[in-house]
């Protein structure tokens, strides 16, 4: 009897171990031998191949726009079927990473800017350079170099960016209201702050309109590190160095934060936590100037009229820098895809001028191709600025430490803006915590 019970327990334990071994082990092993790629059929040999494509979208209307690319592609490629799945940004990475862990990742997929540059070192994405070389792909030279560079890491190219460039944008109606020339944006860093003070609107000692759109708390899809980074870039600074070590606690960076704090203390900035809005202050009529992409302002432009929005390159920083922040969505290939050639065909197709132009028009994105500049400027003269900005655009540097650094920077910024700590103390503490955690990873 005891023996029998022992046997039962033993077999139960064995079943558990077996199941566990299979469930735990296949998780995300980068050296997986067989690439299922979630697609059926083998490449070549005339058999139809199904490509799985996943893209994150930030507005539901984008679904149809992406589906169109799939339809167009299938029309010109008889043997390849494309299954495009669009997923809201908020849920996207969870779904994608679990699919990677289960080894059934899509063949081609989008990635947020930060997501790519912080996970590229894990070896899951295909280096596109070899495919480009074999093909002698002419599209490469058509790309704006700074935009192409965004997807580079360690000599490889891991994603093609659909960029979201953030030059200066201002509200002409608010400029008039403040007695400023609506056609004259600030030209220098000093002027930027001067204007920001003039443009701020206060009621009962509280800001009801920001002069400059500074995100003070990360809530409802407004991220505090982004407006801060825009300001750093004008000073030739970044959040961390190429080794991923935080630099936002450098004396120069702290100085930038202190300048912003002048605005905060002067009640020139609306606090994100005082208003229940989705997105940035500027998107919600609560700021007069911002570093923002035309793409993110489509809704605003519709409601207030495009004639009330002005675009220009950012004001010259103290050292003459006019770098714009660049974010966006990368299109990436899974390294383990069973159909690299077909996947590459799709990427090439998507980024060809013929396909990118209607896509960009329909989605509101700007195509990062030099050959399309004229077309876009014709479409809207304001696009001239965006294309000019692509000549000098920068963003997060590739680093696995991105997520930790940003996490603690957000805390530090909030502590500074809410005056819980001095800017210096807040940045030093945040950087120290980030360093400590980076070391433990």
């Amino acid at each position, binding site marked *: 009897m005891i023996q029998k019970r022992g046997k039962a327990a033993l077999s139960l334990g064995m079943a558990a171990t077996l*199941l*566990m071994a*299979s*469930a*735990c082990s*296949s*998780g995300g092993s980068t050296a997986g031998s*067989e690439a*299922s790629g*979630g697609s*059926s059929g083998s490449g070549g040999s005339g058999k139809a191949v199904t490509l799985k494509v996943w893209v994150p979208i*930030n*507005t*539901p209307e984008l679904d149809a726009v992406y589906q169109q690319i799939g339809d167009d592609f299938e029309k010109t490629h008889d043997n390849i079927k494309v299954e495009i*799945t669009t997923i*809201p*940004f*908020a*849920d996207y990475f*969870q*779904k994608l990473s*679990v699919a990677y*862990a*289960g*080894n*059934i990742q899509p063949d081609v997929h989008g990635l947020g800017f930060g997501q790519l540059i912080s996970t590229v070192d894990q070896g899951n994405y295909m280096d596109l350079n070899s495919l480009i070389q074999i093909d002698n792909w002419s599209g490469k030279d058509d790309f704006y170099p700074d935009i192409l560079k965004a997807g580079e890491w360690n000599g490889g190219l891991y994603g093609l960016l659909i960029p979201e460039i953030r030059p200066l944008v201002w509200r002409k109606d608010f400029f008039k209201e403040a007695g400023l020339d609506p056609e004259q944006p600030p030209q220098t860093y000093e002027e930027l702050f001067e204007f920001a003070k003039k443009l701020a609107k206060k009621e009962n000692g509280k800001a009801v309109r920001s002069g400059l759109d500074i995100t003070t708390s990360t809530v409802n*899809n407004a991220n505090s590190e982004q407006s801060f980074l825009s300001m750093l870039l004008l000073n030739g600074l970044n959040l961390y160095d190429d080794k991923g070590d935080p630099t936002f606690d450098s004396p120069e960076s702290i100085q930038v934060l202190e300048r912003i704090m002048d605005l905060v203390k002067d009640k020139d900035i609306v606090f994100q936590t005082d208003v229940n809005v*989705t*997105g940035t202050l500027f*998107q919600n009529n609560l700021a007069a100037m911002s570093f923002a992409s035309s793409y*993110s302002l489509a*809704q605003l432009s519709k*409601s207030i009229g495009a004639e009330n929005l002005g675009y220009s390159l950012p004001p010259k920083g103290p050292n003459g820098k006019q770098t714009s922040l660049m974010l966006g969505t990368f299109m990436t290939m899974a390294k383990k895809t069973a159909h690299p050639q077909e996947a590459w065909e799709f990427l090439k197709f998507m980024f060809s001028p013929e396909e990118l132009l209607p896509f960009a028009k329909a989605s509101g994105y700007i195509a990062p191709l030099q050959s399309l500049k004229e077309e876009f400027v014709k479409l809207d003269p304001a696009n001239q600025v965006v294309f000019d900005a692509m000549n000098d655009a920068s963003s997060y540097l590739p680093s696995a430490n991105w997520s930790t650094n940003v996490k603690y920077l957000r805390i530090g910024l909030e502590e500074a803006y809410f005056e819980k700590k001095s800017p210096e103390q807040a940045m030093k503490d945040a950087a120290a915590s980030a360093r400590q955690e980076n070391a433990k990873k």
Partner: protein
Amino acid sequence: MKKAGATKSLIYVFLIVITLLNLVPVVVMIFTSLKSNDELVSGSFSLLPKHWMFDNYRQAMESGNWALYFKNSFVVTVVVTAGSLLFNTLAGYTFARIRFRGSTMIFVCLLAGMMVPAQSIVVPQFIIMKSIPLFGHNDIWGQGGTGWLNTYFALIIPALSGSIGIFMARQFYASFPKDLDEAGYMDGLGYLGTYLRIYLPLSGPLMATLGILKIVSVWNEFFQPLIFTNTESMRTIQLALSLFKGEFTIQYNLLMAATVLVSLPMLAAFLLFQKQFVGSVVSSGVKG
């Protein structure tokens, strides 16, 4: 007598006030669903809509193949509820009324499963789901295909076991008088027979409560369908609801309109089940 009447009125006033307060958010939700876009972006809040946009409901339902999403959610909810009610109450009865070796141990293990969030166990769950042999083009070793992923199985089977359901049934049956088991034993019934003949007929309130809890939780489940399904053909209503939420803008009115419609079947189910609450049952079950 007067005093009793006063107490009664006081109870009524209290209940009415509490119930109405409780319904304020629901009312706000309904009115929001009837507002126009312009009114929502204007920023000023008023309870009643300026223009009653009943058209929002039509628009919300035309935003996708909602008939399909309702069907998916309906199928999953019905099967899960029926199956889990049977399994859970049976297990709950066993834990409550039968002494057997390891019962406490097994029971605690069952509870432990509720104590980590779904997000924590999702990766191994996903891999197991993908590796079910002979399903979704898998071979006998569970390799090569997608198993139960993107099928009803993925949404139904795991939900059939419910720790909460077992727990509640156990607590419910624990308060039954001991005479019931003896009555069953006298009648020569086995464990299963005792459950079916004696306990099940007395389980009205339990079934009603458990049923409504399970229906609501399955109907409102978001995370599992998000991770385990991919195609529109498998989309459930909660996934569809999440699509109204963009990164820069939320279509509050359409979202709320759809939410109201999605919640209606839950209200209907509640009203349907609550008939079961009526009447004290246990006392009538025990003779003498």
